[in-house]
């Protein structure tokens, strides 16, 4: 997938034997001019927590030698809300609202992960329609998350136009999300054993229309950026991580795949019948910011493909399992049928008890491997709810990626990690 043929005649120093200008790949292999001696004095620079280029409330304390980054010390926790502690005081269905607020750029895949983890713990198999709808939710999340990433990274590096295009497309998904769940950001879509709501009328047509027109926008962004001299110069060879380093730092998601490790939970530990969908996992080879960009761009295309397949196979039927201990009865039944009312009351007041045990479930979120680990002691509230936050673990590699780069490259590297502080700090 390498597009490393881009060479730009900027910074040309002369002509070759044939009289053509000598082309130099921007940013790669260009030796910086001799720096004046500053007597080895290092400077301490504080970036954030309120800084647009840190994508949230991330604070970076940077030790600089001239303009070269010597050391980065990230400070996190400004958005720490104690979600894991709060989860220990809530029923499984009540935790859904907490998951929205973690990765708030892709709330629906967080919701789905929670439901699947709780269902793994309780040994519940959901209906076919529910599975397909959850796939749709996951892929819609991936698209909006990658679009935000693409737009904001473009801004960080100096390209404003993709931001507008990406956010325009993202808005269309948000409208669909709003029609489905009633909320744009805090979707709280899933429940243990099913979904909060079925898709509304006209949703399928709108989503099909989105799938039809969206690839054009990707192509436009591709055309604008992939061969763009400035873009390539700012991203190629920046923040390079080899496959071994990426595994050593437990990177996941597009970061890991850009380094050449083809690990994707959808393929390697399939859930929601992902093995029956036809899609490919883009893998990079250089592990730099540019490859991460290419991987995410291709993932947008693949997600659109998965959405189309899911729409094609969407079966009719119920979205919730029929077990009255798990699924809330319809409101009309709860108001008129004695038994339904009792089940309604018991579920709301006592929650759904999970058997003694523990379950770790992970799915391929937009940021990487998102895992939920539940430990249950037989009551309706988990003893321990651990979130394996992909953004947190990916961010831990930032200091190693930045060392020796310029301060402006650090902004590009930080953007390429695609952090969302709600998830990092939880």
């Amino acid at each position, binding site marked *: 997938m390498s597009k490393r043929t881009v060479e730009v005649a900027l910074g040309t120093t002369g002509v070759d034997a044939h009289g053509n200008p000598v082309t130099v790949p921007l940013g790669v292999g260009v030796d910086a001019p001799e720096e004046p001696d500053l007597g080895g004095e290092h400077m301490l620079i504080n970036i954030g927590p309120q800084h647009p280029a840190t994508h949230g409330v991330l604070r970076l304390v940077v030790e600089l030698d001239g303009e070269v980054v010597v050391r980065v010390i990230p400070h996190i926790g400004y958005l720490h809300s104690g979600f894991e502690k709060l989860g220990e005081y809530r029923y499984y269905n009540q935790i859904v609202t907490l998951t929205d607020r973690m990765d708030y750029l892709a709330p629906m895949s967080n919701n789905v992960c929670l439901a699947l983890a709780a269902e793994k713990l309780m040994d519940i198999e959901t209906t076919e329609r529910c599975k397909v709808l959850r796939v749709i939710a996951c892929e819609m999340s991936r698209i909006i998350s990658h679009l935000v990433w693409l737009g904001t990274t473009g801004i960080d590096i100096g390209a404003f136009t993709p931001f507008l295009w990406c956010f325009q497309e993202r808005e269309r998904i948000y409208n669909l999300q709003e029609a489905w769940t009633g909320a744009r950001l805090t979707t709280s879509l899933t429940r243990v054993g099913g979904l909060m709501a079925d898709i509304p009328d006209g949703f399928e047509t709108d989503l099909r229309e989105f799938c039809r027109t969206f690839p054009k926008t990707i192509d436009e962004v591709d055309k604008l950026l992939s061969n763009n001299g400035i873009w390539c110069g700012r991203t190629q060879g920046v923040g390079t991580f080899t496959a071994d380093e990426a595994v050593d730092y437990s990177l996941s998601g597009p970061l890991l795949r850009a380094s050449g490790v083809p690990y994707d939970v959808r393929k390697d530990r399939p859930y929601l019948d992902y093995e029956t969908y036809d899609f490919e996992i883009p893998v990079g080879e250089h592990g730099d910011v540019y490859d991460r960009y290419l991987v995410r761009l291709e993932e947008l295309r693949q997600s659109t493909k998965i959405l189309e397949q899911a729409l094609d196979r969407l079966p009719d039927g119920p979205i919730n399992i029929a077990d009255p201990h798990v699924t809330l009865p319809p409101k009309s039944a709860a108001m008129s049928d004695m038994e339904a009312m009792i089940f309604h009351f018991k579920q709301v007041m006592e929650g759904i008890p999970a058997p003694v045990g523990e379950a*770790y479930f992970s799915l391929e979120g937009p940021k990487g491997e998102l895992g939920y680990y539940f430990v249950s002691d037989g009551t309706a509230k988990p003893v321990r709810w651990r979130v394996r936050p992909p953004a947190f673990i990916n961010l831990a590699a930032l200091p190693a990626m930045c060392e020796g780069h310029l301060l402006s490259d650090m902004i590009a590297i930080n953007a390429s990690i695609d952090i969302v502080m709600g998830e990092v700090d939880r």
Partner: protein
Amino acid sequence: MHPSVAALRSQFGDAVGQAHVSCGDTYVYVDPAKNLDILRWLKETAGQDYNYLVDVTAVEYRDVERLLEVVYELFSLKRNVPLRVKAVLEDRVNPEIDSIVPLWRSADWLEREVYDMFGVTFRGHPDLRRILMWETYAEGYPLRKDFPLRGRFSRSEQVRQALNANPEAHYSMEELAIAETNYDLPLDMRDRLRRGERGTVPDPEEKSR
């Protein structure tokens, strides 16, 4: 039984405790004194190849009889097999275990989080300090079961501390050491830096004296 558990038993004998299967996942208890050896063996032995550290976390149970457990979630990228390794920490007050940062760099922040939230000291960790809470946080370890949901201090005490926070405490001593080359730090701060102290808020009364 999980093949890796059988291999672990034959390799380490008594250091490997019980193995359980829950919801399709296998987890095995190991001797906390040998966690580093066992994990290194699992990572580096051909045929095991658990080269990807998915997660490090800890669990404390509501049952007061049960001790704190450190949980390592491993995955083999080569063989597509997960394995969960647990170590029970005997000491309730000052739980300690060897750090696995020498094996995986990703354990750095994960262990810092466990230290921050549960108070587990990881021996040999290169930079063990709080990560989600601030360095001078004095209320304890939030995810321990004896920690109340709203925190140990009263709301007014929490507000008072936040308002009285010294801006100096926003930087760790390590970071201030970078700026020290400028020789514009106050003398007392440089003095504390020399003593290797980090991130303590100066007592206002002591200053006035």
